[in-house]
């Protein structure tokens, strides 16, 4: 901002502080581009600069009525703008941190998905194996899984379970190479 504009801003700000509404438009016209440019340089993003410049200017005009006319208006105004830029920068940083934590949570969700996929794969492999067992072993394992014990003596059922599980283990080892 050159010296002429600086002096003009000072004069307009003094008039506005006194209540002279006719100083509003020229002051706004002088400030908006400079404040916008300052914020863009400070923040490096047009969207953030718009936010910061708007909020800062609203604060400047809201406090214009209590502006101390002995102060340097430009320094006072750009102090508010700089503070607003710092606030936007902090907010942006916090947003990034939040995004990062959401991403980490997302990773956790992905792990759950992986576990579910593994479980689904195991289940499918087991169903395939059980389906290939003899009908007696197949029925016994289904009875175990469903919790419906057939109408046979307990000792008999226990032997059938041991036999079916042993055959299932052998079949699994044969197909997948490990327990």
């Amino acid at each position, binding site marked *: 901002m050159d010296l002429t504009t600086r002096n003009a801003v000072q004069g307009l700000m003094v008039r506005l502080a006194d209540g002279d509404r006719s100083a509003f438009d020229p002051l706004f016209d002088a400030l908006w581009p400079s404040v916008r440019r300052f914020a863009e340089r400070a923040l490096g993003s047009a969207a953030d600069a718009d936010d910061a410049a708007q909020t800062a200017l*609203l604060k400047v005009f809201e406090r214009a009525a209590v502006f101390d006319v002995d102060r340097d208006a430009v320094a006072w105004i750009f102090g508010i703008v700089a503070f607003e830029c710092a606030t936007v920068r902090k907010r942006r940083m916090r947003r990034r941190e939040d995004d990062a934590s959401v991403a980490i949570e997302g990773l956790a969700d992905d792990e759950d998905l992986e576990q579910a996929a593994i479980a689904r794969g195991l289940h499918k492999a087991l169903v395939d194996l059980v389906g290939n067992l003899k009908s007696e072993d197949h029925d016994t394992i289904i009875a175990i899984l469903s919790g419906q014990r057939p109408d046979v003596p307990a000792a008999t059922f226990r032997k059938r379970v041991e036999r079916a599980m042993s055959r299932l283990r052998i079949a699994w080892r044969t197909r997948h190479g490990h327990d």
Partner: protein
Amino acid sequence: MDTIDAISVRARAKSAYERGRLMRGARESAVALLPAGLALFGGTAPRTVLVTAAVLALVVLGLRSRGELYGRAAFVGMTAGLVPLLLPLLMHRSGFCCIGGMSCSALCLVACLGGGLFAGALVGFRASAGERMPTRFMMAAGLVALIVGSLGCVVSGAAGVVGLAAALAASAVPVAMAFAVARR
């Protein structure tokens, strides 16, 4: 030409400015508590003080929010009004003046007239001292001085307030004109 963003920001900034002025006016209208307290201390009826102080606060709020000469007039009027506020109250409290007795009331009335003349002279002098619109300034400052002064002059009834208003007007205009002529 303004972009849509700048147009919207300009409108919001204007509202923010008016809001800021109103808040400042509201804060400064608390100054009405001072003459109200003095009037209560001096013996003015609490209900009268309450109503008058509320009107004073509203007038100060309006003038200070409006700003410029009106804002300045509010404080000049407040200062000028302290004289017709304090004179009858002091006389009333010190026993020189009481309500009911004709001669005592007349003393209070004299105090109101004297205070009004002084306040008017102060307003007129200040109006002629560099204000671009001295008539408006005198009207605004005179109104505030009248309200502040009536907090004290009301102890001598409506006559006290009317006398104060007449004295204010009678001295403000000629003093303002005299000083304006003298400065040319």
